[in-house]
């Protein structure tokens, strides 16, 4: 069953990759990249059980979970503002009350 899961995950990653290649918009590609990173996390964990070193692999997967999220936020920020630094209060949106 573990092997089947690994194969399914690899297949799903291929499908996500297909979406990343086809696009058509930048958001589709970010979506595909995010889905790909989620599946990578699952793949790393399952692989750890297959090779019998799950304690090591699960740490790597945990790190990948956190870093994958940061990567998605970073790419979104670049696509929305054109740079990484802006605090974001500049663009006018229906106002959420500021923090303090």
């Amino acid at each position: 069953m573990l092997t089947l899961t690994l194969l399914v995950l690899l297949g799903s990653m291929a499908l996500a990759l297909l979406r990343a290649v086809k696009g058509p918009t930048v958001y589709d590609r970010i979506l595909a990249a995010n889905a790909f990173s989620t599946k990578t996390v699952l793949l790393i964990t399952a692989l750890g059980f297959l090779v019998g070193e799950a304690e090591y692999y699960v740490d790597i997967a945990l790190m990948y979970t956190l870093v994958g999220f940061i990567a998605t936020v970073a790419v979104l920020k670049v696509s929305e503002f054109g740079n990484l630094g802006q605090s974001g209060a500049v663009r006018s949106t229906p106002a959420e009350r500021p923090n303090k």
Partner: protein
Amino acid sequence: MIDIMSIASGMFLLVGSVFTLIGSIGIVRMPDVFTRLHAAGITDTLGAAGVLLGLALKAGFSLLLVKLLLMLVFLLLLNPTACHALARAALHGLRRPWMD
């Protein structure tokens, strides 16, 4: 007892694999980025939960189990956040969503 655990673990892995695959098919099939996000949500919730809980049953009572559950918590906290940020960016940057 061991048998029941491994059967339950196999069931969870199967459910996780099936939903991961369906989510990925959805990412390819759906007509626009917003509907694709719904499909990606399937992989992120039941797909990830199935695979990780299946592996957690394999791990038994150990630190590994705790880390797998921690990873599930992170995924269920961070993925909807990334998903929402992506949907919001797409709404601002793109155009109105696809309607029937």
